[in-house]
């Protein structure tokens, strides 16, 4: 180690994780097998709302290899109610949420019975032989109808389909003025209703769970983002002592919020393994995953923006209906509330009011999906800013510029009560415009319009910010969330100078092993290769809050840095003793302790020397414990506020409605960057999901509540052929809320991109009288909007499979 060693932070390190993954040397939960392992399969309701009048399992029970069949009645006494950790209001209505339905089903896909068999094939066979009689009940699907007087009820015992109404008002909170007055005095009013369609997270690895009850502890392997939360919740839900449960998240194939859950399948596998006294595995099929794993988004947004003629915004009123589906899952009620603080975005609104009504329907429960509440908010405000620009006849970027927080105004406390620590919207926008060739594209757009070209060019802008790095515990407390937002880490110094880092974050594709190694290498001055990152097992990593909400780096890695500080502090005492100096005279740089001011050639002891000396413990200063290992728990004081400017150019064929993304420029400011390769990858993937919401994806139910988009043939996760090449770049405004200056990046691309694309599509055809097209902007909808002004062709329940991105404009598959 020399003092000139290149810092690891900022290096485009190739990932440590890859070696196993590219060779197929993987530990997905479904790969696991144990002696005597049994296989569970789940029979699911085809009805969206019905009474179960009879279940006959006698034939199934006698089939080859079938050890047991359990119905809801068999498990009713021990299954408890699936947890909801976020009661957003004191009077929130929350139905009992069984893992397996007992006497009624409330969405199509709800479990009604389970089979336990020797093999997965035999278990699947036996499902066919179970006979269930249903007595159909009226289905509740449409949110507006659900909250209307006299509506049919999803849960009769609750007496209403409204779960809760949550309000933020800047006048009441003292963070701003009265929005009704702003609206009354407005020179310009923009009133719109936007729909956030229902989405499906569609992580590539189907969920899988294995429970082994044969040891002193129950061991659960699960494809989860949240092994630590899962352990606590299993203990609380099933009255099993927490210390008797160990949860392991082995390799986990993506999550995007979809695996931030305590699932019925996990609970059922646990209950069945406990009954059988044998290890049991359940792996869902993709069709089951699409049907029964929680969905995302699904909001109706009624929006009123008040402004002056000069483009200055004066007020924003947001009234939401948010579809919870049939039950409240782990954080379902809080997802739309996370958006409450983001509708005002980067703009200086003096008055703001947000009202969200959470509604029950007979559909799959909704919960977190990449962005969770913030994409909805960003979509609404960025669409409205374009509408305001169109109303005033000014450039959409100009109207944003007139209203955004200028870089010299940070830190800035918003009308929603958040304090943004840092940002430079001017710099990101300038860079994006240059990379995009904004002026040239506007000129081409004018030229094509004048020419009456059948293919029109549209340009969409999204100047977004978001709040992530969930979350300061005191804020979560004020929002009635059931837990804190801290994260834990530990560092173990091994005798040979190698380092084990234990993290409570739980990666499932993000590259923590690489990024944490880089951070610790810098902190302790050890080689990148000498760091091993341990995670995702409550036995090795006993304490954690897991990975979601772009929190790993800004919360989890801060705990790692704090733990490293403690290691260094402990090591300094020993090093001073070894150097025969007083502790105050010793400094640490690039992995070695020296007497301060003694020069680079002076005697030094490396942190590895200290680790060995502590292991031997032959000659330690008095009162010093022979241990450098340290742990820390970090609770952030603020959220993280990444921002950026995304510009999208689309070509819209006005004769077919087909949309082609011609270019996409994303300039993101995520503060300091630990690994630019990983950051770029996160942005790419985020863009893909955000663009997919704009153009391709939608979960569609028919009028009886059957999910029509129940396979990957119908639910259009985009392929390589459907997406453009992105131009990504960054500006770097360090966060002031953490010592590394870093901001979250996991959700930014998804949050930013959806409105950029839809703004571009609308911009391409606005001169034809179109001011909105509902998502996904399918060829059908775009064509209809151009022809008839109808914005929602193929809306709720009309058309499965929106996007067809792989079909070219001549009608044939590519």
């Amino acid at each position, binding site marked *: 180690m020399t003092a000139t060693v290149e810092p690891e932070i900022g290096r485009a390190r190739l990932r440590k994780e890859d070696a196993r993954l590219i060779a197929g040397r993987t530990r997905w939960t479904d790969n696991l097998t144990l002696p005597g392992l049994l296989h569970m399969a789940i029979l699911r309701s085809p009805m969206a709302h019905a009474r179960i009048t009879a279940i006959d399992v006698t034939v199934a029970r006698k089939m080859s290899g079938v050890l047991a069949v359990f119905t809801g009645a068999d498990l009713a006494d021990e299954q408890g109610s699936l947890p909801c950790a976020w009661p957003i209001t004191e009077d929130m209505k929350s139905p009992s949420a069984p893992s397996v339905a007992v006497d009624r089903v409330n969405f199509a896909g709800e479990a009604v019975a389970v089979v336990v068999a020797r093999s997965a094939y035999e278990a699947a066979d036996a499902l066919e032989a179970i006979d269930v009689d249903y007595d159909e009940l009226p289905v509740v699907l449409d949110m507006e109808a659900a909250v209307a007087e006299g509506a049919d009820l999803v849960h009769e015992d609750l007496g209403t389909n409204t779960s809760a109404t949550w309000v933020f008002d800047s006048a009441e909170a003292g963070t701003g003025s009265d929005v009704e007055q702003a609206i009354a005095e407005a020179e310009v009013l923009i009133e719109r209703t936007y729909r956030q369609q229902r989405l499906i997270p569609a992580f590539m690895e189907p969920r899988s769970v294995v429970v082994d009850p044969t040891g002193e502890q129950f061991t659960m392997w699960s494809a989860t983002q949240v092994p630590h939360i899962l352990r606590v919740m299993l203990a609380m839900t099933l009255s099993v002592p927490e210390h008797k449960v160990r949860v392991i998240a082995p390799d986990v194939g993506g999550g995007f919020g979809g695996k931030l859950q305590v699932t019925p399948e996990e609970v059922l596998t646990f209950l069945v393994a406990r009954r059988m006294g044998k290890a049991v595995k359940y792996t869902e099929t*993709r069709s089951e995953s699409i049907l029964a794993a929680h969905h995302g988004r699904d909001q109706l947004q009624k929006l009123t923006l008040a402004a002056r003629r000069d483009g200055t915004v004066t007020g924003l009123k947001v009234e939401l209906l948010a579809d919870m589906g049939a039950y409240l899952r782990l954080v379902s009620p809080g997802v739309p509330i996370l958006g409450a603080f983001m509708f005002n975005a980067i703009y200086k609104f003096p008055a703001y009011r947000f009202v969200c009504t959470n509604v029950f329907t007979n559909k799959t429960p909704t919960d977190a999906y990449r962005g969770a509440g913030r994409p909805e908010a960003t979509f609404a405000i960025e669409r409205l800013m374009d509408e305001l620009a169109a109303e005033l006849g000014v450039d959409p970027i100009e109207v944003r510029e007139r209203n955004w927080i200028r870089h010299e105004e940070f830190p800035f406390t918003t009308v929603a009560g958040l304090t943004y620590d840092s940002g430079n919207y001017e710099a990101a926008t300038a860079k994006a415009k240059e990379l995009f060739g904004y002026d040239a594209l506007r000129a081409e757009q004018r030229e094509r319009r004048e020419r009456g070209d059948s293919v029109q060019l549209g340009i969409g802008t999204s100047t977004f910010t978001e709040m992530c790095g969930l979350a300061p515990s005191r804020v979560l407390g004020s929002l009635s969330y059931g837990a804190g937002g801290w994260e834990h880490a530990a560092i173990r110094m091994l005798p040979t100078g190698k380092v084990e880092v234990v993290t409570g974050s739980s990666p499932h594709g993000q590259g923590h092993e690489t990024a944490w190694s880089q951070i610790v290498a810098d902190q302790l001055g050890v080689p990148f290769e000498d760091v091993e990152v341990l995670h995702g097992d409550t036995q090795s990593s006993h304490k954690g809050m897991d990975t979601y909400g772009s929190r790993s780096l800004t919360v989890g890695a801060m705990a790692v840095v704090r733990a490293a500080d403690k290691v260094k502090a402990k090591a300094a005492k020993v090093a001073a003793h070894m150097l025969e100096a007083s502790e105050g005279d010793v400094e640490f740089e690039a992995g070695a302790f020296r007497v301060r001011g003694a020069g680079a050639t002076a005697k030094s002891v490396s942190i590895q020397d200290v680790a060995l000396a502590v292991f031997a413990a032959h000659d330690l200063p008095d009162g010093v414990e022979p241990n450098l290992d340290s742990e820390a728990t970090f609770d952030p004081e603020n959220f993280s506020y990444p921002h950026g400017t995304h510009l999208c150019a689309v070509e819209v064929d006005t004769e077919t409605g087909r949309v082609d993304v011609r270019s996409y420029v994303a300039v993101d400011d995520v503060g300091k960057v630990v690994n630019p390769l990983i950051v770029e990858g996160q942005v790419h993937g985020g863009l893909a999901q955000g663009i997919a919401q704009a153009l391709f994806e939608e979960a569609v139910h028919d009028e009886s509540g059957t999910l029509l988009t129940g396979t990957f*043939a119908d639910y259009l996760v985009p392929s390589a052929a459907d*997406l453009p090449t992105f131009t990504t770049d960054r500006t770097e405004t360090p966060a002031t809320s953490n010592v590394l200056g870093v901001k979250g990046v996991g959700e930014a691309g998804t949050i930013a991109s959806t409105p950029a694309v839809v703004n571009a599509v609308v911009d391409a055809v606005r001169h034809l009288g179109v001011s909105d097209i509902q998502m996904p902007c399918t060829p059908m909808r775009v064509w209809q909007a151009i022809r008839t002004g109808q914005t929602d062709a193929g809306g709720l329940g009309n058309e499965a499979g929106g996007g067809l991105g792989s079909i070219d404009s001549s009608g044939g598959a590519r």
Partner: protein
Amino acid sequence: MRITVTVDGTTFTDDVEPRQLLVHYLRERLGKVGTVVGCDTSNCGACTVHLDGHSVKSCSVLAVQADGSEVTTIEGLARDGRLHPVQQAFHDNHALQCGFCTPGMIMQSIDLLADNPDPDEQAVREGLEGNLCRCTGYQNIVRAVRAAASTMSGGAGPEAEQVAPASNVAGGGDR
């Protein structure tokens, strides 16, 4: 039914149910869990392997259909501890995040390069259309495939599965 299949260079003779899918035979009977199942409608391509040198989705092939054939999975690509150039390129270009689609993506990429040793971007995107990835947005996958093309010797069919002599894998073999 009794079948004999050579998988990643080892020959296996087994009795299988006629309905058993090749992917389940590979995973459950042979322990080749590097090949994974991502869907049940042949849309995602996560289970892609090579059957007699050509890519197939092993969820849409019955084990009995592989009787007498050679199967190569992701686990059989590396030779003597050296990665296949496409595996190396996926690493070098950060073409994977969670890694679940990666085995299928790599197997399909090799097949694509066998058909077209120097594909342009559009050809790569279209060649991988049957393989879904939810993490990467595909950009780095496309980059990796094109980078691999430049490090592999041109060739057709099954030869593409062979690791080329060292002189032809500059930057692709042992970094």
